[in-house]
């Protein structure tokens, strides 16, 4: 299946999982690790420069920085958590959004071209080790342990025979599924998207070099690769937004007074 014999005789090797694990750059350090560190340098520099010397009437760069900050602050944190409690979570959710966004976008940046989030370790670190403890912690802190447990697993107003079914599902979802699906969603989207891009790009290259008569199809493959790059850009932004939005949603649900 992985081989495709064409007229020219060279073997076509379809891109696969192995392409996601390039050899380490040095020692144990791999490309995604470098990218993850690089991403926080970019984001940190952007915000530190953008927040330096803030003016009431913003300049161009401050306006851009404010707009990005406002996405995390207003459209993610305030929308999901509510105007009363959202303030302390703005830095966290902004970090989540920017971290996932920039690491996703690495997938279409020339020469980098690798979405860090296609390695499940990174989204898992954020969702399971950061978001998951945070929303349970603030929920328990607000309501107390038992009340929080009831609040999270027993939807108000449901009749008892529904609760028998619903409570285990809610429990399973709130305590096991939420962090995992959060990580897997972005991982799968980035993995599949990158694979798709590789397929069209490598196939186009192969057709161009070894395709013989089928060389005429190569431009079609490249055109698809370019079109898919735009689609990927959309998906990358969307996935980062969804990741941050759901994180905010979990926190908001944990803090909410009624279910």
């Amino acid at each position, binding site marked *: 299946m992985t081989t495709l014999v064409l007229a020219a005789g060279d073997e076509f090797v379809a891109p696969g999982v192995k392409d996601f694990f390039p050899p380490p750059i040095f020692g144990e350090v791999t490309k995604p690790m470098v990218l993850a560190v690089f991403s926080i340098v970019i984001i*940190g520099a952007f*915000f530190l420069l953008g927040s330096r010397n803030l003016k009431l009437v913003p300049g161009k760069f401050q306006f851009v920085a404010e707009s990005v900050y406002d996405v995390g602050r207003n459209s993610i944190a305030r929308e999901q958590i509510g105007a009363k409690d959202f303030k302390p979570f703005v830095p966290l959710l902004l970090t989540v959004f920017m971290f996932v966004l920039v690491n996703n976008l690495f997938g279409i940046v020339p020469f980098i071209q690798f979405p860090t989030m296609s390695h499940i*370790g990174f989204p898992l*670190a954020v969702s399971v080790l950061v978001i998951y403890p945070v929303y349970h912690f603030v929920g328990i802190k607000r309501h107390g342990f038992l009340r929080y447990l009831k609040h999270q697993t027993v939807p108000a107003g449901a009749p008892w025979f529904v609760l028998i079914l619903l409570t285990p599902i809610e429990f399973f979802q709130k305590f096991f599924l939420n962090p995992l699906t959060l990580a897997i969603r972005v991982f799968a989207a980035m*993995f599949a998207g990158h694979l798709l891009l590789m397929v069209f790009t490598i196939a186009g290259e192969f057709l161009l070099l070894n395709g013989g008569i089928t060389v005429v199809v190569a431009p079609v493959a490249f055109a698809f690769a370019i079109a898919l790059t735009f689609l990927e850009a959309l998906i990358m932004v969307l996935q980062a937004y969804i990741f941050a939005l759901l994180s905010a949603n979990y926190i908001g649900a944990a803090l909410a007074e009624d279910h």
Partner: protein
Amino acid sequence: MVNSLVVAAEGGQNPVLPHTSEIIIGLVAFLLLFFIIKKFVSPKFEALYAERAAKIEGGIEKAEQAQAQAQETLEQYKAQLAEARAEAARIRDDARIEGEQIISELRAKAQEESARIVAQGQTQLETQRAQIVAELRGELGRLAIDLADRVVGESLEDEVRRKGTVDRFLADLDDTSAPAAK
């Protein structure tokens, strides 16, 4: 599926299983970024937003104050204007009353004067008339005696009778002329 498993087995890599080192790197990188944003970025933006909100609210308040002040000044002006109008009306009224008073005073004075002049003239006339009457009376008696002397000659000896006749005649004359003089 089978193929991918084979590849995974060959390369010793399974994309669904996380690498511990990546989790650690991811977590550390994330926490570092979180620290930077929480410590240095977010407070600045929040302070800016608070300042901006305060400024806008302050501006609104200032505008309201200015408006209130303008309203107050306008009312003051209006009150002053009304006062001035009332004052002017009062002055006009006063002037008219005073004028009327002056006119009536002058009229009274003039009337008095005229009455005085008339009265003076009348008394003057009266005296003159009395004088003339007295003069005429004497003259008339003398003339009548002269006339009678000439007419009758030396015939009238009885002086007493003569005197009575003349006096009676003059009295009669007085009676007839007196009402006309009055």
